[in-house]
């Protein structure tokens, strides 16, 4: 069938489905790169060391073959106000920063308000599945440290090749 013989409607449908397939491979990475680039750009104008308009809490992730270390910056957060959830390879950090200064009842005037407070939630996709029951979490001096061991079922297995 020659292309010129396809009706207008059919051609639109074909083009639409082609774009959708491309998105899964090429466009997805592109969007991720743009996001990283934008975050770095915002970081240039911030003086406090983390991207101001980025996701909260900012995290650093360390990895080896057996597990992950995640550090999150959560100044002022008490352990009882943090909710951690691990589902397969998704980590969710949620909580509520109670800010006694932003809500000070006796304040007569605010001169500066740079800190943030309130509810937050952040979900991060990890590179592999985690053993949720072996996760360790410690919060100290406003830094949350998570040790996330890799699930045995998600570890690569060597497969022996037999010759016939």
């Amino acid at each position: 069938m020659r292309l010129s013989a396809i009706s207008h409607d059919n051609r639109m449908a074909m083009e639409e489905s082609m774009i959708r397939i491309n998105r899964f491979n090429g466009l997805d990475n592109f969007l991720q790169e743009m996001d990283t680039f934008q975050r770095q750009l915002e970081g240039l104008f911030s003086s406090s060391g983390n991207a101001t308009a980025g996701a909260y809490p900012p995290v650093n992730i360390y990895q080896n073959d057996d597990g992950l270390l995640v550090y999150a910056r959560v100044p002022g957060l008490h352990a009882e106000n943090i909710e951690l959830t691990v589902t397969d390879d998704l980590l969710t950090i949620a909580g509520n920063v109670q800010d006694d200064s932003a809500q000070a009842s006796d304040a007569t005037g605010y001169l500066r308000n740079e800190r943030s407070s309130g509810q937050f939630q952040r979900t991060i996709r990890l590179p592999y599945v985690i053993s949720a029951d072996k996760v360790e979490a410690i919060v100290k001096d406003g830094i949350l440290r998570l040790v996330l061991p890799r699930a045995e079922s998600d570890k690569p297995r060597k497969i022996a090749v037999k010759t016939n």
Partner: protein
Amino acid sequence: MFASLTKKGETQKTEGGVQKEQRNRPVYQPAVDIYENESGYVITADLPGVDEKSVDVSLENHILTLKAKASEVVTEGYKLVYAEYRVGDYERSFKLNDQVNKADIQAVLKNGVLKLVLPKAKPEVTKIPIKLQ
């Protein structure tokens, strides 16, 4: 708006050329909230990763300076794959007006947040006697 300053930490050397302390970390201005109430001012600063041994608050000539060092993280055997923040030192200065009672400034550090309470001095009224000539 405050100026955004990111400077490298200082290098200190003794006379003999032996390096006493060299810090190659970024220095950030911590985010602060400042509000005023009846009895004074309250400054709250975010200092994640800082414990009370690593923070220094000093006052000289109406300038209140806050310096702190965040503790290093132990990551032996792991490789950094994603970073949204850098571990560094903190420094920020504030110019105080004459209303502040400098002798009674209090500082409390908890969960990586430093709270400074600056009470206002009670105004001193000195009566000046008038002598009759």
